[in-house]
């Protein structure tokens, strides 16, 4: 048999503990004061996709080859790519236009999964609000391109894995190229 009213006293004690405790214990005051304090995002958090370039120059270091796989796979169809052409009108492996409409994007990461060149990755930038519905939310190539170093800064583990994989692929390709070169060398020699 509980003493009548004991529940109310217990409840009052709980709130009193919180009232006083929130001034002394950090655990009891978990609010982050947003503009001054930034949340420390978990490493795997993601917002919208961005494009990676290697080296210093965004244009020359661009990994994207305008294969348009991401454009085809994108469920809400928010990616828009036009392949670049050289002076002779011959297509080259580089996008002329690469737009992502982040007002449509649903952050599903499918573009990242399907990209064979590890060129597109998810960003952590979340302060994207703007006063206009259209232009500021349509990210063009210039705004999408970010350096590999930036990628390392936001997703270190994943970036290291990607780099290692790219290195393996590059080595394989070199080996294949050198093998091919060796192979092609032989017939010429033979022909000679």
């Amino acid at each position: 048999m509980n003493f009548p009213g004991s529940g109310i006293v217990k409840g009052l004690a709980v709130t009193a503990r919180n009232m006083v405790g929130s001034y002394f214990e950090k655990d009891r005051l978990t609010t982050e004061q947003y503009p001054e304090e930034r949340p420390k995002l978990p490493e795997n958090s993601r917002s919208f996709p961005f494009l990676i370039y290697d080296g210093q120059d965004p244009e020359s270091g661009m990994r994207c080859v305008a294969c348009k796989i991401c454009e085809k796979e994108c469920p809400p169809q928010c990616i828009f790519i036009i392949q670049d052409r050289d002076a002779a009108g011959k297509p080259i492996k580089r996008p002329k236009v690469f737009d992502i409409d982040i007002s449509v994007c649903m952050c599903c990461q499918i573009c990242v999964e399907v990209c064979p060149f590890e060129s597109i990755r998810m960003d952590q930038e979340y302060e994207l609000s703007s006063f206009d519905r259209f232009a500021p939310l349509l990210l063009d190539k210039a705004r999408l391109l970010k350096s590999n170093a930036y990628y390392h800064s936001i997703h270190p583990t994943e970036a290291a894995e990607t780099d290692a994989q790219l290195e393996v692929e590059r080595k394989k390709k070199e080996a294949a190229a050198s093998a091919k070169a060796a192979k092609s060398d032989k017939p010429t020699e033979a022909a000679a």
Partner: protein
Amino acid sequence: MMDLLEGAPIQLQAWFLGLLRSFGTPEWILAVLSALIIIGTIIGVFLVLFALTSVLERKILARAQNRYGPNRVGPFGLFQPVADGIKMITKEDLVPRTADKVVHFLAPVVMLIPALLVLAILPYGRGMVPAEMDSGILFFFAVGAGTEVAVFMAGWASNNKYSVLGAMRAIAQMISYELPLVISAIITAMVAGSLSPSAIVAAQGGFAFGFVPQWFVLTPWGFTAGLVFYIAALAEANRSPFDLPEGESELVAGHLTEYSGFKYATFFMAEYIGMFAICGMFVTLFLGGWQAPVPALTIIPSWCWFLGKICFVAFTMVWVRATLPRLRIDHMLAFAWKFLLPMGFAAFLSAACWHYAGRGPAAWILSLAIIGIPYLLLGNSFTNRFAVSRRTYQFSE
């Protein structure tokens, strides 16, 4: 130094009037002016308290819920009331097309008048009663009854079903809780032998054994009556957990649904000033009014003690608001009629026995027994009746 502060408000007023008199101001102007000074001071003090409470309440509630609360406007968010006030005044004053325009306009005025009038009889300090009345307690409750009229006017004139429902709930609640409120107040009047607030405060003066204050709340019957008064005061001031009239989850905002802008601000202000008034009454009746709790602290001016105690009681009301969820309407009315009212009568009986048994140790035991037995019986029957049974869901297997 402290003696100077003790009489400071009265001295200031006398000095100011003396100054005017030396200029040859007629006597009747001085009489009216002396009243106006007091009215202005009291209203000013309570408006400042209201402004402070409106921000501190939110901060305390926030801390109880592990949040920061308002801290953007000014240092520690203390200018929040100014921002709120500007917002309230600049908002559009909406009146529904089908509303009863005159009654709709009068309701906030009628709400504010009793809230301000009842401040007249509170003893703010030693010899500081604005209107010394023979039946001050009765005045408090009689004028306070005007609030019900205002709530009804607001609810009915809005011509909105939520408003009317909220107003009917509010009236049912106020009528039900007025009984325990008045009965617990009458007990102190009975023991003190007077309906005058200053006489009741005087009856609580002095210290037993030289250090224990003889406040009514420190006796068994006084504690019970004080608790009954406090709970009923929560209901009368429409404070949580009895804030059903404006239960936003079911009634939008009750009788305030159709009010906006300055009219809403007036209601808000009247509610808070009414809360302070009833806190002041609680302090006067049970917490010894302006008396200091320890003999050594009597050097602090009496009016500081009174204001401090009001702030303390108001803080506990915020604390209760942070703790308890809103009651259901039938539970609330049942609580008033089946628990608070019998406990009020028990305290009544207990106080009478305490007085006639000589106010000694035997009286204490007797009055404790008279309180304790009904408390245990009623409390247990209540907890059993409203015990939450295990929920069963239709398709839960």
